[in-house]
């Protein structure tokens, strides 16, 4: 239980930080795509005895690079290509899984099983999560600049392509570490919701990161506790709490929430400029 809490909070923090970039770049669907596309990688890695994280990472990266490549070399739009590629890869994973004898549980991969995490897995997740967290935080300004104004990044001779791949790699690895917690169907919530909560509360990027991380960590901890006491799906509880936080932010955030906007409009009517 204590292990689960630590792992959950680490996963939440890692995903939350990345979610800020995904939300700002309009890459939300990319998070969904990569998380589904890791399945064949996991199955293959299990089959040949590699760490599951390695297989997942390669498959996730393949998905995003293949999407970019097909889009550049065809007239089909990016979201469409992505839809085809990630469902195709997910289906491949399902077929491979059904043909393989294993003691892997498909529902653990799809839905997560954080309360049943082993000590060594927990340690592995904590270390990988911490590395991702540090790398993202250190490179946040560069990653923000390539998302905000590519031209400026190029003019300053920053390695913008490399930074794109860095973000993709961080994304794939974050998905790998969160599979255990929420499973690959719900990972996308961890990768989108905290960032949008942050964006609703502030218009400074560093604050957005902190709010996203804070809200995600708190929701995850309470989600795990609730699921433990209700004996309900852990991944489901975590994501549900996050969704509620999002709804509350949508309503009550001071500047960009509905209530705040309504108040501002009334203030504007009372004292017209």
């Amino acid at each position, binding site marked *: 239980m204590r292990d689960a809490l630590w792992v959950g909070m680490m996963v939440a923090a890692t995903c939350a930080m990345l979610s800020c970039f995904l939300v700002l770049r309009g890459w939300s669907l990319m998070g969904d795509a990569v998380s589904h596309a890791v399945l064949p990688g996991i199955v293959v890695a299990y089959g040949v005895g590699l760490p599951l994280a390695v297989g997942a990472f390669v498959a996730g990266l393949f998905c995003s690079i293949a999407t970019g490549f097909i889009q550049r070399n065809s007239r089909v739009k990016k979201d469409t290509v992505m839809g085809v590629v990630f469902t195709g890869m997910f289906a491949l994973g399902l077929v491979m899984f059904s043909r393989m004898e294993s003691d892997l549980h498909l529902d653990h991969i799809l839905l997560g099983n954080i309360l049943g995490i082993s000590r060594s897995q927990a340690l592995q997740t904590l270390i990988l999560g911490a590395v991702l967290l540090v790398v993202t935080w250190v490179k946040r300004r*560069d990653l923000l600049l390539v*998302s*905000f*104004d590519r031209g400026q990044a190029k003019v300053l001779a*920053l390695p913008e392509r490399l930074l794109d791949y860095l973000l993709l790699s961080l994304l794939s690895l974050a998905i790998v570490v969160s599979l255990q917690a929420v499973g690959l169907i719900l990972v996308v919530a961890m990768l989108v919701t905290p960032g949008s909560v942050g*964006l609703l509360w502030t218009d*400074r990027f560093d604050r957005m990161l902190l709010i996203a991380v804070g809200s995600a960590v708190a929701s995850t901890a309470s989600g795990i506790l609730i699921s433990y006491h209700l004996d309900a799906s852990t991944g489901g509880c975590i994501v549900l709490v996050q969704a509620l936080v999002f709804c509350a932010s949508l309503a009550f955030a001071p500047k960009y929430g509905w209530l705040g906007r309504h108040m501002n409009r009334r203030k504007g009517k009372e004292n017209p400029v």
Partner: protein
Amino acid sequence: MTEAPFDLAVEGVSVAYANGHLALRDASFHLSGGTICALVGVNGSGKSTLFKSIMGFVKPVSGHVTINGAAVKVALKRNVVAYVPQAEEVDWDFPVSVADVAMMGRYGRMNFLRIPSATDKTKVEEALRRVSMWDFRDRQIGELSGGQKKRVFLARALAQEGRVILLDEPFTGVDVKTEQAIIDLLRELRAEGCIILVSTHNLGSVPEFCDQVVLINRTVLGYGPTSEVFTEDNLSKAFGGALRHFHFEHSTVQDHDGRAIRVLTDDERPLVFGKDGHLEYKDREGREDILRQREEET
């Protein structure tokens, strides 16, 4: 700043699209600082392609661009090329403040952690003060007017200490007062030895503040001092049929209306040609002889 004058050489540059179609063919021109040079041509004439090749975003299939004799790539590493984008290229909802944007000009000079030093902070403050945006430093960029947005990105170029500054349509969506402020600032930068390249379709403002012009239509049609290159003939060549002409006939102007010409226009300046060059001119210093001569003629 007393550095050696900068020079920019574009030699025989051809750029092709992915489909093999040439966007720019054998374009050549030469500029040395300080100068404000207008890049004039219709939409699709290759203005932005030329910009992109100067910034190293596209690789020419032949020819090359050099800045102070060095390849573009080397110049970019030295952070001497600065770029002021068009408003549409930027997502104004991003959670960044005016000061954050100006600080982005300094990234190339920071270490990989991008932690601003005291110098970086002073440069940003100086730049923002220079465009009168220091008081707005904590505003989110979406909350600014069109003119203020332009000035923030100009401040970023200043903070970067760029010596070759490229501005893409700097006067679109900008009020008349800001336009004048930007022009004044560009003149100061010219005096400091910068090469300023302005892509514009706002012809009326060109003789107002640009001392040189590059006319472009798929290739460089001509370049040089504004008074020599920016003529009615050349412009007709560059724009083909895309320009609207209004001729003020002898009868309407001189007799009928008592020698008064009135030109009304929206926010863009009209380009008015008279005999032997431009009628309207704000920098008349040094041209007293022409003025006197014209006086006598009337």
